[in-house]
C-alpha cells in the first residue's frame, strides 16, 4: 500500500521534472549555453521513474491487491519470477516500462554526448522530452498502474498462464529497449535537421544508437519467436500475426537505416532519405504500440480493449508526425548541388538497392497488416490476410534480394574494378544452381519458385562463407551479420520444405509408426504443482537404429484463471528437432498427439544470434574507437 502511493507520487514528480527540463532546454537553446541544471534534473527524473517502476514491482511481489493492476494480473500463489515479470505482462505496467526506457535513453545520451554540438544536443533533449511528456500523460490519464481499490480484494485474478514463461519474462523488456531506442534516433534526427548537422560526423554518432536499437529489436523478436515455438505454436515460430508484423516493421526500417547511414558516413549522400527512415522507424514503433494497445488487432498480445487509449496514442502519433514533417520541409535544404560521381557498380548503389527491396518488404508487411482494418471500416467486409499473402508477395522478390546481397557488399565504394572477384561470383552462382537442382531431384520439390529460392539462398550462403574467411576486408562485424542472415534464410527455407509431422488420437498403451520411428504411449502421470495441475504423458520413440528416447509432453491445468496449456517436449540436435505435444479430448480417454520432425530448427536461433552478434561487434568497435 505504501509502495503504491510512493509509486504514484514519484510518477507525478517525474512528469513535473519533464516539464521543467523542457523549458530549461528551450531557454538554453536561446542562450546557446547548456544550463547545468538540466543534468541534475534529468538524473532526478530517471530516479523518480525508477522508483515508480520499482514500487510497482514491489506491489506485485508482495501481492498488494489494493492496487488495481496487481489485482487484475496477479495471484498470490504464482511463482516469484512470474510475479515480477507480471509487472510488464499487462498494459499499464508495460507502459511504465516504456517510460522507464525512454528516460533511461535520454540520460544515456546526455552523459555520452559531451563532444557534440551544443545546440544539437539541447534540441535532442527537447524533442526527447516532448515524447517523454506525452508518455507521462498517457500513463497518468489513461492507464495509471497505481489505481487504488477499496475494499482490498483478497485474491487477484491471475496472469494468463501462457505468459508464465521464462522467455516471455524477458521478451518485453528487450523488445522495448529496441522500440524505444528509436525514439532517440528520432529526436536526434530532428535536432540535426534544424541545426543543419546531417553530415559524416552525425552519421558516425547516430550509428551507435541505431545499432543499440537494432540489436535489442533483433534479440527481442527472436525471444518472442522461440517462445511461440515451444509454447504457442505447436511447432511454428512465425505466424504473420499482426502483432508480430508490428515488431518486424521497425526492424526492417531500422535495418534499412543502418545501411543507409553508411552511405551518409562514407560519401555524404542520401541525406533526406536517412532523415525519412529515422522518422519512419520511430513512427512505426509508435504505430505498433497504438495497434497493440487499441485492441483493434485480434491477437494474443491484446491485453485490454480500451478505445480511449488507442485514441490518445493516435492523436499523439499524429502530433509527432506533423511536427517532424514540418521540420523536414522547412529546415531540410538539400538544395546545394553536390556533383559527386555515382557509378552503377559501386557499394552505394548496392546499398540503395538493398533499401529499395527492404522498403518493398516493409510495404508488404505494412499493407498486409493494415488493409483488413481499413477494409472492415470502409466496406464492412471482414477478410484475413495470412501467411499465404506474405509468402506469395515476398518470396519472388526475396530471390533477387538474396542475389543482390551476395554481390553488393563485395563491391567497392565509388567504383568496382576487380575482375577476379566478378568471375568468382559467377562461378559460385552456378555451383548453387547445381546444389538446388540436386535438392530438387532428391526431395521432389515441384514448386519452381522454391527451387530458385533455394539456389539464391545457397548462393548467398557460399559467398558469405567465402567472405568470412577472406582477408581482403577487415569489417568482421558485417561479415558475421551477413553470414547470420544467409544462414537464417537457408535454415528457415530447409525447415519449411523438409518438416514432416503426424497427428493422431491415442490412448495409453497404444502405438503408431511414423516413417522409420515407433512411437509408444506408455502411461500418464498426474501431479499437483504450485499453481496448476499437471498431466504428463510418457512416450517412447524408437528410431530405426533402435535408440529409444523418452518424451514427456505435459498438460497444465491452471485454475486462476482456468486455462489449459500444452507444454511440448522437444529434443533438439544439430540436424533436427523432434517435437511431441499432446492435448486432452473432452470426455474421452483419448489424447490428441502431434509428432513433428523439424530439421535445422536450432540453426534459425543460432543464425539470428549471429546477426545480433555482428551488430554487437560493430557497436563494440565504435565505442572503443572513440
Amino acid at each position: 500500500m505504501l509502495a503504491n502511493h510512493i509509486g504514484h507520487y514519484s510518477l507525478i514528480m517525474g512528469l513535473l521534472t519533464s516539464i521543467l527540463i523542457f523549458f530549461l532546454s528551450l531557454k538554453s537553446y536561446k542562450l546557446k549555453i547548456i544550463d547545468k541544471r538540466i543534468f541534475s534534473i534529468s538524473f532526478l527524473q530517471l530516479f523518480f521513474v525508477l522508483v515508480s517502476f520499482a514500487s510497482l514491482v514491489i506491489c506485485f511481489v508482495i501481492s498488494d491487491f489494493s492496487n488495481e493492476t496487481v489485482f487484475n494480473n496477479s495471484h498470490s500463489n504464482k511463482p516469484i519470477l512470474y510475479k515480477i515479470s507480471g509487472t510488464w505482462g499487462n498494459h499499464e505496467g508495460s507502459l511504465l516500462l516504456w517510460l522507464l526506457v525512454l528516460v533511461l535513453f535520454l540520460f544515456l545520451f546526455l552523459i555520452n554526448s559531451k563532444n557534440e554540438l551544443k545546440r544539437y544536443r539541447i534540441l535532442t533533449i527537447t524533442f526527447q522530452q516532448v515524447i517523454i511528456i506525452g508518455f507521462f500523460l498517457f500513463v497518468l490519464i489513461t492507464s495509471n498502474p497505481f489505481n487504488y481499490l477499496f475494499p482490498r480484494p483478497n485474491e487477484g485474478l491471475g496472469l494468463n498462464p501462457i505468459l508464465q514463461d521464462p522467455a516471455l519474462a524477458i521478451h518485453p523488456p528487450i523488445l522495448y529497449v529496441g522500440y524505444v531506442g528509436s525514439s532517440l534516433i528520432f529526436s536526434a534526427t530532428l535536432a540535426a535537421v534544424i541545426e543543419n548537422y546531417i553530415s559524416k560526423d552525425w552519421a558516425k554518432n547516430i550509428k551507435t544508437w541505431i545499432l543499440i536499437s537494432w540489436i535489442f529489436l533483433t534479440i527481442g523478436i527472436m525471444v518472442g519467436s522461440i517462445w511461440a515455438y515451444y509454447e504457442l505454436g505447436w511447432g511454428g515460430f512465425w505466424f504473420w500475426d499482426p502483432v508480430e508484423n508490428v515488431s518486424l516493421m521497425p526492424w526492417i526500417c531500422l535495418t534499412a537505416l543502418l545501411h543507409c547511414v553508411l552511405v551518409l558516413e562514407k560519401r555524404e549522400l542520401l541525406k533526406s532519405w536517412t532523415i525519412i527512415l529515422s522518422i519512419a522507424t520511430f513512427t512505426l514503433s509508435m504505430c505498433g504500440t497504438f495497434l497493440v494497445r487499441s485492441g483493434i488487432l485480434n491477437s494474443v498480445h491484446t491485453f485490454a480493449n480500451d478505445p480511449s487509449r488507442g485514441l490518445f496514442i493516435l492523436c499523439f502519433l499524429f502530433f509527432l508526425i506533423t511536427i517532424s514533417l514540418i521540420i523536414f520541409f522547412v529546415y531540410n535544404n538539400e538544395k546545394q548541388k553536390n556533383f559527386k560521381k555515382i557509378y552503377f557498380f559501386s557499394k552505394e548503389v548496392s546499398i540503395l538497392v538493398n533499401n529499395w527491396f527492404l522498403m518493398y518488404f516493409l510495404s508488404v508487411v505494412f499493407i498486409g497488416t493494415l488493409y483488413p482494418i481499413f477494409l472492415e471500416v470502409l466496406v464492412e467486409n471482414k477478410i484475413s490476410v495470412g501467411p499465404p499473402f506474405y509468402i506469395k508477395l515476398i518470396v519472388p522478390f526475396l530471390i533477387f534480394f538474396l542475389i543482390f546481397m551476395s554481390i553488393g557488399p563485395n563491391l567497392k565504394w565509388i567504383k568496382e574494378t576487380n575482375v577476379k572477384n566478378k568471375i568468382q561470383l559467377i562461378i559460385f552462382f552456378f555451383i548453387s544452381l547445381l546444389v538446388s537442382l540436386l535438392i530438387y531431384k532428391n526431395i521432389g520439390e515441384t514448386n519452381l519458385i522454391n527451387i530458385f529460392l533455394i539456389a539464391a539462398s545457397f548462393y548467398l550462403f557460399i559467398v558469405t562463407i567465402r567472405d568470412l574467411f577472406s582477408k581482403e576486408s577487415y569489417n568482421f562485424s558485417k561479415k558475421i551479420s551477413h553470414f547470420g542472415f544467409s544462414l537464417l534464410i537457408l535454415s528457415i527455407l530447409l525447415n519449411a520444405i523438409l518438416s514432416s509431422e503426424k497427428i493422431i488420437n491415442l490412448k495409453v498403451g497404444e502405438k503408431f509408426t511414423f516413417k522409420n520411428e515407433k512411437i509408444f504411449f506408455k502411461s500418464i502421470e498426474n501431479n499437483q504443482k504450485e499453481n496448476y495441475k499437471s498431466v504428463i504423458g510418457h512416450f517412447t520413440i524408437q528410431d530405426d537404429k533402435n535408440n529409444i528416447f523418452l518424451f514427456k509432453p505435459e498438460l497444465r491445468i491452471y485454475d486462476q484463471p482456468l486455462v489449459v496449456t500444452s507444454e511440448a517436449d522437444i529434443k533438439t540436435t544439430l540436424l533436427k528437432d523432434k517435437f511431441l505435444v499432446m492435448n486432452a479430448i473432452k470426455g474421452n480417454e483419448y489424447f490428441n498427439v502431434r509428432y513433428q520432425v523439424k530439421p535445422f530448427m536450432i540453426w534459425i536461433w543460432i543464425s539470428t544470434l549471429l546477426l545480433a552478434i555482428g551488430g554487437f561487434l560493430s557497436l563494440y568497435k565504435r565505442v572503443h574507437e572513440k
Partner: protein
Amino acid sequence: MKLFKIFFILAFILNSFSTSFAEKNDQLTIKISKNLRCVICQGQSIYDSQSEFAVSMKLLIKKKIEQGLSENEIYEFLIDKYGEWIVYDTGFNKNTFILWALPVLLFFLGGAIILKKLVFRKN
C-alpha cells in the same frame, strides 16, 4: 572440390528426409487447416489451435476430402458457411486487388525514383 563434397553430403542428408506419398490425404488436411482461421481463438489457425471448434473443423475437412472435394471446393463451402474471414489466403477480387497490387506498384515506383536520380546525375 571440398565445397562439392560438402554439398553432396548435404544433399544425401536431405534425401533421408523425403516424404512418402501414402499420407497425401493427411498432408492435404494439414495444408488446408493451416490456411483456415480458428474463429473462436485469437489469431491462431485451425491447424495451430486445439479448441473444440478447431478439432471438429479438422474432422470436417478430412470428411470432405474423403468425399472427393478439391481444396478449392472445401474453401468455397467454408466461406459460404463462415464468411471470407475464415480463409487466410484472400483471393484476388474487387475488395483485395489493391492489397495485392499496391506493394508491387510501390516497388516499381521506388525503382523508377532510384533510376531517375542516378541517370539525372550523370547528365
